[in-house]
């Protein structure tokens, strides 16, 4: 029997705000425990929440970027459950009137691009972090009250690969929109998944399980692979999938039962009386829509249209909005955007990958890259020299002209200067010269190499080939 898989994601995204959602404490990561807390985020008796408008703006921006419908009137609710990391033992979240409803995001699949529908996006507060010691436990409340946006998809994803692609596409949008730093190591993006399988052709979805503790995109992929296999195996031998929450054990590479449906919480949601409903005016939405930066899909299309780039280049460049910005800054000053793209995709991205840094951290400027490319185009230096100049630019910055000058890299394109060297090479290597004359074309490369060696790499290789060919094919030297 063949099976169809349905996967839905619930993604918690930490918003890029300076302060927490209901108080003025900073959201800085990595501070010593309980140093970024106040009566409000500690849930002290009498403290009241005050909504951070920036968190609302960023959530709405995400909604606009993902084509959601924005609720003009939205409200907060209390979600009640006891847990030591929850200061108030209720979480302020949104239940029936979230900020954003609907929307979707396209992903690339082997069978073409496909829209994954979103159910909703709501805003809520993060909880603290339990710490366990030898004899006791503690709680760090620095993270309590950090603004989180929860994005819930429809169960439109059909494989672990698709879930993975969705997460990458989403991350791209959130980065482009300046909505989140999406720093996985700092827990900026956390994901729970709902998954069910059913015999292919069946109308109704199968019984689902919910997976938790997925701390990386890779964990999502592995956990889904495992869980799909587990559910298919159960159904294949006539057993049923139990509706439950399962925890991903990353070490063992398996999912383990946490709690069944019967043990599920009754969260007793009710409207948060300490906050007033969020009312958004049309003017406000218009203003925010105007602030929305260009999104990856639109930018890809524009890079292809305006700079004549192939789709592949556009995809690579827009994966990181900063890289795309760098490209555009350079391409605007250059006659040949495709060549700019080649340089960035090969040399620059390789260095970024090796050093694990952002393009913003490079001392290389778009101007310098354009100047370097033009120098090559004009035949002033050759490619190997250019690559070494670029390496220096990426390490220390500076102007290409100055580096070329200091390191004496200007290539020799003067026929008169090259001919004596070529004469020497032909004289010193009679064998290869004879081979070439006897029709062994590859021998020419050896001779070119020798000329480059004697000019310490500065000879214009095209000119060397031309002169060599003429010399060996019997034309007498010009002198």
């Amino acid at each position, binding site marked *: 029997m063949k099976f169809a898989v349905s996967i839905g994601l619930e993604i918690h995204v930490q918003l890029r705000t300076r302060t927490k959602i209901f108080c003025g404490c900073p959201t800085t990561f990595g501070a010593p425990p309980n140093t970024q807390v106040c*009566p409000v985020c*500690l*849930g*002290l*008796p*009498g*403290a*009241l*929440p*005050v*909504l951070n408008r920036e968190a609302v703006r960023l959530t709405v921006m995400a909604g606009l970027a993902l084509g959601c419908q924005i609720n003009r009137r939205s409200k907060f609710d*209390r979600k*009640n459950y*006891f847990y*030591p990391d929850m*200061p*108030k*033992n*209720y979480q302020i979240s949104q239940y029936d009137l979230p900020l954003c409803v609907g929307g979707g995001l396209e992903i690339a699949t082997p069978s073409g691009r496909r829209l994954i529908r979103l159910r909703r996006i709501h805003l809520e507060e993060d909880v603290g972090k339990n710490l366990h010691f030898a004899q006791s*436990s503690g*709680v760090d409340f620095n993270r309590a009250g950090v603004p989180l946006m929860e994005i819930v998809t429809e169960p439109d994803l059909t494989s672990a690969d698709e879930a993975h692609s969705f997460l990458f596409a989403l991350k791209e949008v959130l980065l482009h929109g300046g909505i989140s730093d999406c720093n996985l190591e700092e827990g900026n993006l956390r994901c729970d998944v709902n998954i069910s399988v059913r015999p292919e052709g069946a109308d109704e979805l199968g019984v689902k399980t919910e997976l938790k503790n997925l701390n990386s995109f890779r964990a999502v992929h592995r956990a889904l692979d495992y869980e799909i296999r587990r559910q298919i195996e159960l159904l294949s031998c006539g057993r049923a999938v139990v509706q439950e929450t399962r925890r991903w054990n990353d070490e063992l590479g398996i999912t383990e039962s946490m709690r069944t449906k019967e043990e599920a919480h*009754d969260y*007793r*949601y*009710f409207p948060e*009386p*300490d*906050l*007033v409903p969020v009312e958004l005016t049309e003017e406000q939405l218009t203003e925010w829509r105007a602030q929305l930066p260009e999104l990856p899909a639109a930018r890809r299309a524009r890079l292809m249209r305006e700079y004549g780039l192939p789709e592949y280049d556009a995809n690579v460049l827009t994966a990181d909005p900063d890289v795309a910005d760098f490209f555009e800054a350079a391409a605007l000053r250059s006659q040949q955007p495709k060549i700019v793209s080649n340089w960035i995709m090969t040399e620059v991205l390789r260095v970024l990958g090796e050093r694990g840094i952002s393009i913003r951290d490079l001392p290389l400027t778009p101007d310098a890259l354009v100047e370097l490319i033009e120098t090559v185009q004009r035949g002033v230096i050759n490619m190997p020299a250019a690559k070494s100049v670029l390496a220096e630019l990426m390490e220390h910055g500076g102007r290409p002209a100055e580096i070329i000058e200091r390191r004496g890299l200007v290539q020799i394109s003067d026929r008169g200067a090259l001919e004596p060297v070529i004469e020497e090479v032909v004289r010193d290597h009679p064998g290869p010269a004879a081979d070439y004359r006897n029709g062994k074309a590859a021998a020419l490369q050896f001779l070119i190499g020798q000329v480059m060696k004697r000019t310490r790499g500065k000879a214009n290789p095209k000119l060397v080939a031309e002169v060599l060919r003429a010399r060996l094919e019997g034309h007498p030297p010009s002198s």
Partner: protein
Amino acid sequence: MSTSTPVAGPSSLSDALVALQRKEISSEELVTGLLRAIERWNPVLNAYIHVNSEDALACAREADARRRTGDPAPWLGVPIGIKDNICVRGQPCTCGSEILKSYRSPYDATVSRRLREAGAVFVGRLNLDEFAMGSSTETSAWGPARNPWDVDRVAGGSSGGSAAAVAAGMAVAALGSDTGGSIRQPAAFCGCVGLKPSYGRVSRFGLVAYASSLDQIGPLTRSVRDAALLLSVLAGRDPMDSTSLDVPVPDYLAAVDRAPDHLRGCRIGLPREYFAEGIEPDVEQAVKAAVADVARLGADVVEVSLPHTHYAVAAYYLIATAEASANLARFDGVRYGLRVPSEDVVEQYERTRAEGFGPEVKRRIILGTYALSAGYYDAYYLRAQKVRTLIRRDFERAFQQCDLLLTPVAPTTAFRIGERILDPLTMYLGDIFTVPANLAGICAISIPAGLDSRGLPVGLQLMAPALEEARLLQVAHVLEQTRPRLPRPPLASRASKGSPA
């Protein structure tokens, strides 16, 4: 001894402010007098659960020094008593509960900050029903506050400590909180003035929440003018409380001081439903006498209807308990307050809360949890919210026919300690005339009408539309002038033996 008068010095907040400004009395003298009264009478009345003797005296001396150097702060050195569910930096805030017996607040409530900035001195923490849940101050972990008019009777609740202290001269004025009548009913029982401002008029930041959508902080004082004075300091928008209203604060004192000596042009409504329930004859008579007086002063007295009054108590006890069930979840022994060490965290929650909360608080947490549970939410919580809307509309309609409503505060005068504590339903039904104002978010005041045949104070309630405190205070002041001045409370038992002290 049993009839000795407790207080020397100014008899009201207004007088105290003037006497201090004219340097006829120093803050140190004033506070010393209060501390002496507290020392003498608090063992009888149990109004204060914590007295800041040294701290208050130090602050009084500092205030006197500042006044000598010409500091113009208007309330410099004025002593105020604070209900023990309103935070004052560095002071205990027990909420009358075992679970917070060791807790001190590290921050000021907005009202405390405003009073502090105006120069006020905080004398002590006033007794209350545990987490303000009760109508008699009997649910306090510190024992009941007693009524200065008959110490065998309750002071009312939940702000019973505040009312008893003001009535007995152990406080010039005090802050209380009112969720369903917790300022007005004890004010009525103890013979003082109690104002519940409109929802959003006074910041709730730093008030330990019982029912967030109903709670308001307000003054308990010896006169309407004093209430106006205190409200002027408390009222106004607070960026720390999203539900506080951004509406200008009128000059309440001017409204009182410029009150005419008549009520011509004022329409006073008598809601039919507030006179139909089982009211004690003495209470009814006191209200009727007041009605005659307002008519004599030229007011148009009209009968109006608030048809959903009958459902108010039920709606109140669903909404308030639902909110309370979440508000009180934070008392879990993890971060502050009582912790009963246990094997695991769940057991720790259970034992801490089992030992920390009293029976009334547990009853309300369970009731509220039930009202919000899956499958019951629509029938209880949601339904109660619909009733709340109907009650609000009742008032809107009534206020088209009249400017203010005049009603009893409670069906009875102060009852005996122990009389109702084992019968929660009777206790709840006693809130019938006060909870509607909280559900509707309007303002209401309780002023003394006189004494019943047993010599116990009877209260009168005036209610006005939301944010109409100026009008409410003005009419209350005019009405107050027509009432006979209450004698000093006996501070003793009415039973033959006299004072138990």
